[in-house]
């Protein structure tokens, strides 16, 4: 009892309203953060305190009285003041501790279940009444602006320009309750406004036609032998005399010695098309400074859609000599032995690289194809991603064998594009209709208007009807018409004046903010709520039409639309954004694996990208298949490619594409906890901490908030010299009672994940630097391993309820004993994400109703989404 009190004292003192961390054992502990601060006494009636004082006298006052006030709490004259946010929070906390059976303490006399229930109901009533009253008056959510994901998607859809990339132009959004969807955290400042303006003007200018006539759609092959970039890298120079950092002229499966030694031409060119097809340029290293070959002759002439076809095959580079077998010879080339993943990047000078996709090169020339959106001026950089990246000094290819090393020979890139459904594009037409175009210099056109006043009004009406997500009146258009006229009067062209007016529309609150009125949402607000939930973007024409007809609120209509939106490919925007925040997937690459401890992961972009793809594909699989929520903790399949299969030790998976792979029975993988992305995001690149990972499981998977450590307590720094395990260090930490009260809850699930290193690779022993028997091998950076296997990992643990587990498999089984809690957490995260408001005390019952509705489906992920959409939480502000 004493321990618990001390802990609660520190939590009370530090003002944290978090609930009990004992929830791991008592999964019914879920709590609502009260809408503190929202409660204005001026506007509310005094609430009646209906406290069961007999209960308090009997079970509480022995400790929580005026003299001892255990835990800083004196209940002798207790009163619930629901309009006071502090009092509200205190009573929610008290409610939860009694509900969870933490109070009265086990050592004291216990109330009957009926007495407990009655007491809780009496505490709940005024709290719920207060929240419902605020809800009626103001709504659960607060008026908010779009976040930067939404602003980008909305502009892409509005202007029919999927290639627009403006997210990075906007400031990072504030978070509340973990998401960038909550009004109170989505601030506006002059910086935000100036960024909106810049982004809007940029987008409008980019979308406008760039020339008077339609740019031709062409098909052209760019042969590597004709690319300055590939050819230049074939020559040694004062900065490079090493074949790993050079390109290999190859013909068929042989070295092209004349080309290499410059005794013959670099290419036969178009004279001999058959031979030309067999020419290529090989690499044995992944693209990295200074080896970054690209198809420099191609630069996207305009932004838009292009089809890329790349032809490549794998080869084998023989050793330079038996003594220095790890050095490749550019003169000894033979047939390939491997299939190699290749990523294509869009590159923009000097150094911006955007991944477009991956293909696989087989032993025979293979053509990989993808359709992509390119920005004007981007060229294409291929990368044989499995290969190493040579970092000085004196590198050694980790893939080298005594008889050589794998290579990839690139033949050509074929580009078809720009692919245009219509020209000018729909975005241009939205801005300028069918007005004639005239040239205004290189790469610039102007729309010609013979009736500027008439055209301005007509075009602005069309634009605003589309951009503003509810009906507009003539008077709504007037200020923008005036603005355009003012611009023309000041000397702007008609085109400039329209862009000025459109920019203003795209900065206006009618566009930037999502308007919702207290009470049940009207059809337009409902259409927006649904589309910003499942597409993270504006409602499409179908949703708009249904809203116009007032049909969205009819029974079944919203469900049918939710189903349609989920089935549409745009729903990836929802899952990507949701995962980015729920699981912090956006931070996967925030820390890099330590160069010395984890050289096998260091610089491995392919692993980072694959791990993010895995988690996205996994969630998509649950969503599409309406699979039960328990899969979040444990699934009998994974969604992986070759790189992850290697990391996880799963045989028989080749190729870069992510696909569903069934797991052998008793595999440690399956579920979110053991995915590389999650294990990386919960580590710091050098070490792992059971505290951080344990807290992560409590918060993200079980929905049990963990209070922050008391101020002034230093984090335990894992020892990378192999002297003590993190567990031994934590054991010391946990002998202090004040620490133990929380850490006995937080740490155990983290212990189970100790079997996974900083990138999710399996380990039985910790790696350490310093003196010890080094592991043989070379890193992705070509440097020798310098670590040694140190102490054994102990993944076992015991939850607070006394249930023990041997390792992560056991932990998963224990967590799934209460799968409703896993589903509850998912539902709560989704409600917060989709409505922009946290689960309040009064909302708890509504979440339970959502769970009841989906129980028969095993709390299927899609079922939960449907139940949310049907709920009052979603349909009211």
């Amino acid at each position, binding site marked *: 009892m004493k321990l618990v009190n001390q802990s609660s004292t520190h939590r009370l003192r530090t003002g944290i309203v978090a609930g009990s961390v004992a929830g791991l054992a008592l999964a019914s502990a879920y709590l609502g953060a009260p809408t503190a601060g929202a409660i204005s006494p001026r506007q509310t009636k005094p609430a009646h305190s209906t406290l069961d004082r007999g209960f308090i006298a009997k079970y509480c006052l022995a400790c929580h009285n005026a003299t001892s006030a255990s835990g800083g709490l004196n209940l002798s004259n207790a009163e619930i003041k629901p309009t006071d946010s502090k009092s509200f929070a205190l009573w929610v906390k008290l409610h939860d501790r009694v509900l969870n059976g933490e109070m009265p303490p086990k050592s004291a006399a216990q109330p009957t279940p009926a007495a407990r229930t009655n007491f809780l109901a009496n505490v709940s009533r005024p709290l719920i009444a207060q929240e419902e009253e605020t809800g009626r008056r103001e709504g659960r959510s607060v008026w908010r602006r779009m976040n930067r994901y939404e602003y980008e998607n909305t502009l892409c859809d509005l202007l029919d320009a999927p290639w627009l990339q403006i997210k990075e132009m906007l400031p990072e959004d504030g978070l509340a309750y973990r998401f960038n969807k909550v009004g109170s955290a989505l601030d506006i400042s002059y910086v935000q406004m100036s960024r909106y303006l810049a982004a809007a003007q940029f987008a409008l200018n980019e979308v406008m036609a760039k020339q008077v006539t339609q740019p031709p759609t062409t098909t052209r092959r760019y042969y590597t032998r004709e690319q300055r970039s590939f050819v230049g890298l074939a020559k040694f120079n004062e900065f490079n005399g090493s074949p790993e950092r050079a390109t290999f002229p190859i013909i068929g499966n042989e070295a092209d010695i004349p080309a290499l030694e410059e005794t013959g031409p670099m290419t036969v060119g178009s004279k001999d098309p058959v031979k030309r097809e067999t020419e290529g340029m090989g690499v044995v290293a992944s*693209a990295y400074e200074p080896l970054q070959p690209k198809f420099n002759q191609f630069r996207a002439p305009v932004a838009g859609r292009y089809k890329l076809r790349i032809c490549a095959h794998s080869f084998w580079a023989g050793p330079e000599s038996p003594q220095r077998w790890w050095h490749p010879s550019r003169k000894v080339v033979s047939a390939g032995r491997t299939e190699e993943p290749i990523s294509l990047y869009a590159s923009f000078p000097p150094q911006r690289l955007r991944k477009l996709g991956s293909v696989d090169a087989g032993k025979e020339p293979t053509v990989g194809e993808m359709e992509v959106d390119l920005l004007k001026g981007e060229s294409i950089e291929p990368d044989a991603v499995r290969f190493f990246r040579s970092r000085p000094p004196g590198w050694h290819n980790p893939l080298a064998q005594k008889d050589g090393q794998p290579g990839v020979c690139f033949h050509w890139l074929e580009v078809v594009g720009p692919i245009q459904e219509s020209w000018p594009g729909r975005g241009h037409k939205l801005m300028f209709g069918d007005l004639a175009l005239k040239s205004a210099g290189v790469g610039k056109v102007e729309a010609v208007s013979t009736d500027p006043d008439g055209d301005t009004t007509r075009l602005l009406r069309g634009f605003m009807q589309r951009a503003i997500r509810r009906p507009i009146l003539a008077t709504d258009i007037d200020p923008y018409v005036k603005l355009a006229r003012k611009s023309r009067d000041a000397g702007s062209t008609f085109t400039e004046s329209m862009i000025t007016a459109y920019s203003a529309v795209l900065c206006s609150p009618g566009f930037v903010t999502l308007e919702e009125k207290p009470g049940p949402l009207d059809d337009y607000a409902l259409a927006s709520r649904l589309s910003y939930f499942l597409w993270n973007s504006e409602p499409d024409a179908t949703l708009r039409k249904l809203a116009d007809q007032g049909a969205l609120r009819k029974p079944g209509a919203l469900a049918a639309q939710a189903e349609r939106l989920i089935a549409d490919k745009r729903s990836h925007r929802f899952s990507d954004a949701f995962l980015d925040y729920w699981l912090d997937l956006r931070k996967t*690459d925030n820390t890099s694996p330590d160069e010395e401890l984890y050289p096998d992961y260091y610089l491995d972009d392919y692993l980072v990208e694959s791990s993010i793809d895995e988690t996205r594909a996994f969630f998509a699989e649950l969503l599409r298949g309406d699979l039960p929520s328990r899969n979040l903790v444990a699934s009998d399949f994974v969604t992986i490619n070759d790189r992850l299969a290697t990391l996880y030790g799963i045989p028989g998976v080749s190729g870069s594409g992510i696909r569903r792979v069934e797991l052998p029975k008793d595999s440690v993988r399956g579920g979110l906890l053991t995915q590389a992305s999650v294990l990386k995001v919960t580590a710091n690149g050098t070490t792992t901490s059971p505290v951080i990972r344990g807290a992560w499981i409590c918060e993200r998977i079980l929905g049990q908030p963990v209070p922050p450590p008391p101020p002034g307590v230093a984090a335990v720094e894992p020892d990378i010299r192999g002297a003590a395990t993190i567990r031994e260090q934590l054991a010391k930490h946990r002998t202090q009672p004040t620490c133990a009260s929380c850490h006995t809850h937080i740490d155990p699930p983290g212990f189970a994940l100790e079997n996974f290193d900083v990138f999710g690779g399996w380990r039985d022993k910790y790696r350490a630097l310093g003196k010890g028997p080094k592991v043989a091998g070379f890193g992705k950076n070509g440097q020798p391993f310098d670590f040694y296997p140190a102490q054994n990992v102990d993944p076992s643990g015991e939850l607070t309820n006394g249930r023990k587990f041997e390792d992560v498999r056991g932990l998963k089984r224990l967590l799934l004993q209460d799968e409703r809690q896993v589903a509850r957490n998912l539902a709560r995260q989704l409600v917060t994400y989709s409505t922009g408001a946290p689960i309040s005390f009064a909302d708890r019952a509504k979440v339970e109703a959502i769970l009841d509705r989906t129980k028969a489906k095993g709390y299927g992920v899609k079922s939960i989404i449907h139940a949310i959409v049907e709920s009052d939480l979603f349909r009211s502000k």
Partner: protein
Amino acid sequence: MKDFYMSNSKPISRREVLKGAGVLLGLPLLDAMAPAFARADQQSLVPRRFFGICNNLGVLPDKFFPNPAQAGREYTLSPYLEHLRDFKNDLTVFNGVTHPDVDGGHPADICFLTAAPHPSSGGFHNSISLDQYVGERIGHLTRFPSLTLGVNVTKGARSLSWTAGGVLIPCEDRPSEIFKLLFLGGSPAEVQAQARRLAMGQSIMDTVADQTSKLKRNVGARDRERLDQYATGVRDLEKRMVQSAEWEKKPRPVVTEKAPVDPMDPKEYMEKVRLMYDMARLAFETDSTRNITLMLDSVNSPAIQVEGKAVSDGYHNLSHHGRDPKKLAQLESIDREHMKLLAGLFGALKTHKEGNETLLDRTMVLYGSNLGNANTHVTTNLPVMFAGGGFKHGQHLVYDRERNYPLPNLFVNVLQRFGIEADRFASSTGTMRGLEMDRSA
């Protein structure tokens, strides 16, 4: 000419945004603007400046760094720092710092003021640079929000200045053009276009503000608070545009210096550096801008001229000296010339008085490199010194040379010295341990 609101960006915390809006009132101002900001107290009227310089080949570390065992104020100047003896108490030398996760050798120079991770890896996207972040917040207080300069840069390929959207801001590499820009003004067409842009920006914001007030009717208290914030953001931006537009109506400052003649040959690297330092000083003296970056693209430089010394090899080639004594000697003469030029810059800034202080006291000069050792391309243990600007200098701050200390922390010091209430920049973890503002300044 830059349109100030074209500066775009990444991460600023919610707190920063909030405070950013408020900080407007607490910023240094020119007399002409003071009435509009009558609430600003005298203390905050001190103009602060920043000059960030990156030499992308760095310097020989052995000759640059003082003995790591001598941390603090009692340290012996290194051979290179001997050239800066007169300014020992005006500068701080950092030992054991890096930009976390900014690896990849040469390409890291474009991250010197952004600290964006992994510039050589797939998916790299640069982020806003320190100067642009500052310019976005206080740029309206001077004629130019920032200046981006370069020596021997491959145009369009290297720069220290990056917009929030990760777009390179090209370097101006002709001193005469900078002089023209500062003191003679752009072409009438340019001036007009800029004036019109700003006027339209104001009109846009004015229209948006009206729409916001309309919405504010009939909403609950919590919603109104959000819309009020929206309206304030809009009006603040409008005010700043008005102030920026005012500049074109004001006469350019008059200086006695003559327009410089541009050295044309890339070999005249050192003369170019000297002229760039001179232009920066003039820009600060006349308060034309408070924010300058200079990329010294040594990688792109040939065998350069150093007064009284024979340099036979290309600068980049020399940097891969492989401990060849002949190359080392040449490299050392180049490095020492850099130090002499810096001494010239510091001296000139110190000579000029502004109020009761020297210009150096109000100008933060950051000099350093993205390479810790060009011979091996390492991006750790970066040679960095920080001079002037009103800090307690005179120190050799030594951090862990094995596990380096984050240099972006220094950027937070810079922001705070400007009066911008930021508490992070890129991968910073706080402010620079051991570096304090000089409160008396």
